[in-house]
């Protein structure tokens, strides 16, 4: 640790106002506070001391995402070898997935952090650390064959239009990673429509993804249901995650490990997470009883394990910036997300996956929910005081 500190002390003069690398000052500061505990203390007023700052919070989320990422890599390889009908060992599958997924992680971080650093430098602000998490989530919620240039455009769009123009980290109304996905979803629907996520075909083209006509496609379970076909994946498979889908969203077990890390470290709210599942289950049960289309007849426990429901509930709905902040509001927010997600799935055959749209919609309503909860509380206390 002291070696790192010495190194930073040694190169610091280069980044002072007269130094030759002053243009990269914000980059230096960003790396310094990422590696070491920041030295700065507040100059005025009271400050609450806590061992955890926002960079550490972000680190916890990134750690929580690792199981889903690793399993996603394995599943990419598994689905590939399943599709071409060959036997392969664990490491062959994992290696194949690693080569397919890693470029996406790199592109997402490079584009997003590049824009963040540029904006920070331009506005003479410190680098904001929010993209550490978004940059990890983005590769996990895209299909494996999504070309890298499309991913780069979508990431740039989301960082600029969903985050920077609202004032940067902590100010965004919509979840940045979900905006990336929404942009892909509406711009390149053939890649993203969710009914048919392509399983990686016979070769990997690292720059452009797999777009050859021979690429093998496999329907996702929700896509099959939307087309009124029986679901071929078993319940066990959808829990362990050996089904076609976006890279990080398939395995309930890996996501559950992430959820435990998030809840244990106190980063995510169990109220939001829990009520998303309750909302989804209740609405799925209602549809089971009331309707007879194929998606409506999926049992409620399968609804919760299929598609991006778990991933959205654990990592996106609980985003502390865009979700409701009042304690009572968290229940309402979560319940409505779960309910909306299942409703969109069942009622709209055009969108087999409803989680993204449900969370984005509720992001827009989160401030309203908070306002109503706070106002209700004020009224209640006023009434009590008037007695």
């Amino acid at each position: 640790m002291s070696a790192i500190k010495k190194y930073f002390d040694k190169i610091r003069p280069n980044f002072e106002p007269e130094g030759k690398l002053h243009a990269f000052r914000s980059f230096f500061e960003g790396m310094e506070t990422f590696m070491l505990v920041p030295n700065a203390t507040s100059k005025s007023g009271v400050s609450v001391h806590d061992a955890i700052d926002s960079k550490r919070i972000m680190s916890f989320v990134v750690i929580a995402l690792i199981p889903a990422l690793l399993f996603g890599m394995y599943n990419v390889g598994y689905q590939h070898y399943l599709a071409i009908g060959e036997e392969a060992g664990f490491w062959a599958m994992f290696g194949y997935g690693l080569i397919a997924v890693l470029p996406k992680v790199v592109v997402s971080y490079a584009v997003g952090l590049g824009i963040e650093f540029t904006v920070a430098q331009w506005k003479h602000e410190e680098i904001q650390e929010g993209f550490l998490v978004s940059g990890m989530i983005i590769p996990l919620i895209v299909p494996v064959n999504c070309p890298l240039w499309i991913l780069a455009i979508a990431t740039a769009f989301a960082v600029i239009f969903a985050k920077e123009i609202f004032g940067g980290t902590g100010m965004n109304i919509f979840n940045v990673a979900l905006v990336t996905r929404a942009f892909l979803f509406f711009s390149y629907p053939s890649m993203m429509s969710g009914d048919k996520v392509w399983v990686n075909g016979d070769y990997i083209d690292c720059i452009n993804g797999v777009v050859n006509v021979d690429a093998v496609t496999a329907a996702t379970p929700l896509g099959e249901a939307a087309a009124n076909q029986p679901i071929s994946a078993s319940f066990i498979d959808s829990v362990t995650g050996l089904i076609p889908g976006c890279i990080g969203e398939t395995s309930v077990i890996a996501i559950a490990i992430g959820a435990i890390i998030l809840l244990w470290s106190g980063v995510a709210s169990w109220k939001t997470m829990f009520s998303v599942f309750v909302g989804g289950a209740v609405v799925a049960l209602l549809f089971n009883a009331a309707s007879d289309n194929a998606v409506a007849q999926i049992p409620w426990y399968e609804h919760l394990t299929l598609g991006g429901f778990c991933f959205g509930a654990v990592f996106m709905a609980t985003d502390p910036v865009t979700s409701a902040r009042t304690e009572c509001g968290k229940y309402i927010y979560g319940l409505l997300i779960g309910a909306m997600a299942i409703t969109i799935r069942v009622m709209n055959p055009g969108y087999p996956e409803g989680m993204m749209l449900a969370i984005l919609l509720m992001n827009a309503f989160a401030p309203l929910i908070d306002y109503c909860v706070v106002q209700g509380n004020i009224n209640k206390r006023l009434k009590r005081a008037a007695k």
Partner: protein
Amino acid sequence: MGKLFSKENGEVFMRPLNLDNPVTVQILGICSALAVTSQLKPAVVMGLSVTVITAFSNVIISLIRKTIPMRIRIIIQLVVVAALVTIVSNILKAYVYDVSVQLSVYVGLIITNCILMGRLEAFAMSNGPWESFLDGVGNGLGYAIVLVIVGFVRELLGFGTIFGFQIIPQSFYTENGGYYMNNGMMTMPAMALILLGCVIWVHRSINKEEKK
């Protein structure tokens, strides 16, 4: 009435093109700017139609401004605009039928375009016919410029064409073995709103000094 091309009249014509642009500064006429700009051709036709209607309704109202009773002036303005819109709509149907089908109701809805009523109320009711004509043309063209910019970007990125001619080579597309895909979101009005926001952003950054 001063000279036809005096400095003041030049100002009346030039201001709406840039510093007082009806779309990017006054934020008027946004609805139609989103609806008709998915391709360049309807955007140009729409821009020209609005220019013609604004110019001539300005002139007509300016000519009869002293005889209009104040209490019913809005109705009279609407009658004039509606008559001009009907004429333009029929001309479009006669000569560029396909574009008029693409524009569908939006030609008729020029009547409700805020730019028109704004210029009639703010300018034509208190200025002479020639100034009003210049003001109308300037505002119409200011609107048309923004439409053309948005339409250009949307058609290029959404369809790969300009005025219907293929600009991005066919061999770039994934169907033909390339790596390029058209951006479907560009063809949706939502993206038009974001592009319009970008145009306003750029315009305001350029004109930062003049604003103060």
